[in-house]
């Protein structure tokens, strides 16, 4: 069994981080350049970490599978980033941001981590503004804020609908500066395909160059993974197509525990699927629910009719009916599940029957079209571009889609996994959002981890490593890992099948969405756990990967990623099956209150499940880290 020590510092909540920073070991400045750190990923978390560590004097190597660090999936975040600045003087504070995040996470996150996140949130905004991030401003020239779900204060900073892009470009500019100075060596088109563990410590990686196909071995004193989330296990999601689980999955197979893999977030307002060719689901901002009314026809027969021809009394405004006090603004998970329910009843609309209407006609009658245009014009434009429909004239069609994964590799308070020397940042770790993430908190966490946490905490580990003690990349562990990757590549290329990789990814997505999606049941999960091993075997027997290993081969890249996703799918279903409660994004139909809210079982499941690999097809071990709530009382989440 893995040893899980959360290393949460003792003392009052608000003092823990300050105290910890003064107590952890430091690396003397002259020694820093003797340490090499590998950073995999250059999204918000990876780019901010690589730049900051290089500024401190460490030798940094940065690896991304993208052709440029600026293309990381962080670029796509729209809404904003939270920070407890209290610039609006509306009563915000570090404690309030901490509390909202803990509550939003349905009491399944560590108090100490979340408090630290809230503390450093204020520094993030300072840092980004100094880099020139063009946040929205008020007429007086000071920073503007908006409010977001799960909070009663206005603490979200934003740059039009492109906040992720602007924050990433800020971190990318810091990284570029260090690359220009020779302090960071940057490797693009370079995919990490294995982790190298020497004497129980993470000491390097294997990469495959996606352009030349070359496999390379890299040794370092510590390895940081900041490789993003794994929502593409569902095939269709709001993620970029290239987002994948490979880096953390291969680390899991080398001994790093996977925390709470089943915690996934499903966003209620996305553009629905139109056909089986579909590759991507696009998010429509949640803000639309402020003025749009959600409905489906009362009768199945009406579902294919022109919505304008359906009389008022034949429409079911189901959120308003089921949740009279919250109505269309019911929390994300509740709104998502309600949509699924009405579609399961056969009352979904659109070509596939998996959609509900988001109707603005009342708002247009009440406020006039220009006012609606001013509030939501850009969203209506995006909607038109994708669907060719005019949402001023006919209701939008929306449906929930996979959007974020709260689970990830288990890390301690220092963001180090149970494999010493392996640090995990950003969406790739499990740390701060518990069972549900609040809007505008992922960007905050990525930058907190990279700019303000790991630059301190990695020193505590490195101070214990003798400078110059890192192994040679010719050590047997490196050769073994390289051979492992080579064998997998060969196995994929030599599979004598007929089906393209996409065929298996789609089927995996269907299984995951049906049984491990918005609503999960014991039977469904058991069914998935029967189907997934079969799918895995079928994949290896009948996948077709054309081309060779020594050139750009996108089919080969995808095949490796989908192979990992299939294995991950099994772990997610097992985690979801074992967690016999509902919490946040994990909803087990058996465990709910009459109003459809999650029924947690703090007694039995007030803990983190950290899974330990035992071999493909073998049941993994379930390690447990108890969550001790010292400062906040675990209670039933209530947003009424």
């Amino acid at each position, binding site marked *: 069994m893995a040893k899980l020590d959360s290393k949460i510092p003792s003392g009052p909540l608000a003092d823990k981080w300050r105290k910890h920073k003064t107590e952890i070991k430091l690396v003397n400045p002259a020694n820093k350049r003797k340490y090499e750190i590998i950073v995999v990923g250059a999204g918000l978390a990876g780019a901010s970490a690589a730049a900051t560590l290089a500024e401190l004097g460490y030798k940094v190597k940065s690896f991304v599978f993208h052709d440029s660090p600026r293309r990381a*999936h962080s670029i796509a975040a729209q809404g904003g980033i939270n920070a407890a600045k209290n610039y609006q003087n509306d009563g915000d504070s570090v404690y309030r941001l901490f509390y909202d995040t803990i509550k939003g996470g349905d009491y399944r996150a560590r108090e100490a981590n979340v408090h630290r996140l809230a503390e450093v949130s204020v520094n993030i905004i300072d840092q980004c503004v100094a880099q*020139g991030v063009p946040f929205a401003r008020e007429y007086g020239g000071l920073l503007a804020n908006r409010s977001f779900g799960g909070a009663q204060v206005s603490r979200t900073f934003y740059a039009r609908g492109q906040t992720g892009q602007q924050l990433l470009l800020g971190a990318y500019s810091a990284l*570029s500066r260090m690359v220009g100075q020779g302090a960071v060596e940057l490797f693009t088109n370079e995919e990490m395909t294995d982790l190298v563990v020497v004497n129980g410590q993470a000491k390097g990686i294997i990469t495959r160059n996606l352009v030349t196909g070359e496999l390379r071995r890299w040794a370092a004193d510590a390895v940081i993974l900041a490789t993003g989330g794994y929502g593409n296990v569902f095939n269709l999601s709001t993620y*970029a197509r290239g987002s994948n689980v490979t880096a953390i999955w291969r680390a899991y197979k080398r001994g790093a525990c996977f925390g709470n893999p089943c915690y996934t977030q499903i966003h209620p307002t996305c553009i629905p699927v139109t*056909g089986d060719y579909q590759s991507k689901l696009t998010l429509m901002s949640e803000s639309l629910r402020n003025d749009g009314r959600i409905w489906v026809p009362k009768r199945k027969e009406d579902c294919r009719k022109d919505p304008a021809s359906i009389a008022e009394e034949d429409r079911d405004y189901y959120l308003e009916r089921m949740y009279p006090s919250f109505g269309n603004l019911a929390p994300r998970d509740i709104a998502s599940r309600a949509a699924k329910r009405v579609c399961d009843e056969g009352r979904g609309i*659109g070509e596939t029957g998996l959609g509900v209407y988001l109707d603005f006609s009342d708002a247009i009658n009440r406020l006039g079209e220009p006012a609606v245009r001013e509030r939501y014009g850009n969203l209506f434009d995006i909607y038109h571009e994708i669907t*060719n429909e005019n949402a001023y004239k006919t209701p939008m069609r929306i449906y929930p889609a996979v959007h974020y994964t709260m689970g990830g590799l288990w890390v301690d308070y220092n963001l180090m996994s149970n494999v010493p020397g392996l640090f995990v940042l950003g969406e790739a770790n499990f740390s701060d959002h518990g069972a549900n993430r609040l809007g505008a908190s992922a960007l905050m966490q990525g930058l907190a981890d990279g700019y303000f946490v790991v630059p301190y905490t990695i020193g505590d580990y490195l101070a214990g490593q003798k400078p110059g003690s890192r192994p040679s990349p010719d050590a047997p562990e490196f050769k073994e890992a390289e051979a492992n990757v080579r064998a997998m590549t060969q196995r994929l290329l030599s599979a004598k099948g007929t089906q*393209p990789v996409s065929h298996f990814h789609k089927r995996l997505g269907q299984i995951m969405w049906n049984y491990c999606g918005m609503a999960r049941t014991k039977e469904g999960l058991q069914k998935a756990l029967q189907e997934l091993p079969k799918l895995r075997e079928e994949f290896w027997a009948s996948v077709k990967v054309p081309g060779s290993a020594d050139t750009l081969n996108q*089919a080969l890249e995808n095949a490796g990623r989908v192979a990992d996703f299939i294995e991950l799918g099994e772990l997610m279903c097992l985690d979801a099956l074992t967690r016999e409660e509902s919490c946040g994004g994990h909803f087990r139909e058996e465990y709910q209150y009459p109003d459809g809210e999650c029924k947690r079982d703090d007694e039995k499941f007030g803990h983190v499940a950290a899974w330990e690999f035992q071999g493909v097809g073998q049941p993994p071990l379930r390690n447990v880290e108890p969550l001790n709530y010292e400062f906040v009382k675990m209670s039933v989440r209530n947003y009424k």
Partner: protein
Amino acid sequence: MVAEASNKTISVTLRVWRQAGPNQPGRFVDYTAKDLNTNMSFLELLDVINDDITRGGGEPIAFAHDCREGICGTCSLVIDGKPHGPHRGVASCQTYVRSFEDGAVITVEPFRARPFPVVKDLVTDRAAFDKIQQSGGYISVRTGAAPDANAIAVPKEDAELAMDAAACIGCGACVAACKNASAMLFVAAKVSHLGLVPQGQPERDKRVLAMVNTADALGFGSCTNQYECSAACPKLISHDFIARLNRDYIGATFRTAFTPASANTGGGA
């Protein structure tokens, strides 16, 4: 009406540039795709064709893509001679099959510009853009050294204009559209974004000189004011920023010619 629009299907032929590697000869190959739902995106059309090619024992077409919502700047197709296709203000991934007629023959090529060599088929190497950024596309601020974010007020108009420039997604369509393969719109966007905010002032001259000179050294051509760049830009970044860049560049060249010697010693506090 919803059902009517989406039930429509068409067939098209793609005439696709195939090139096995950087220094290999390339040629056009035709692929016909039938019964396409017109709501399909252009990249999904390539997915469908690729799956057919794979099932038929061929090698799929390599093309660059990631977010598929017009923000990451990865997709980079020249469709019927236009970078990012027939519509203004969108990236290749935001182009839909409904923009084409039933039976159309559509040519699909990679971005063509000397500083963006072809890697394979429709994929090009745009690392030159990263190099331009590394030469000076930043504000030098160490992590942790920043003052309070509201310590400096930035006039709303300046912040908005900076944001207009900062919207660049770094796709390189501007270069592909320009007969000189000039990177001036790309450089102008970055220089203007950082030059419009107070934080960017101390390094303003150094930045513009470094970025323009690096672009020249990397083989990008010069701007001859044709403005094909902003017409092809998926974010419709205005060529007015190029005029701003030129002013900055001339001013910086002038000012650095008269820099006091002490400023060049590099010692400093």
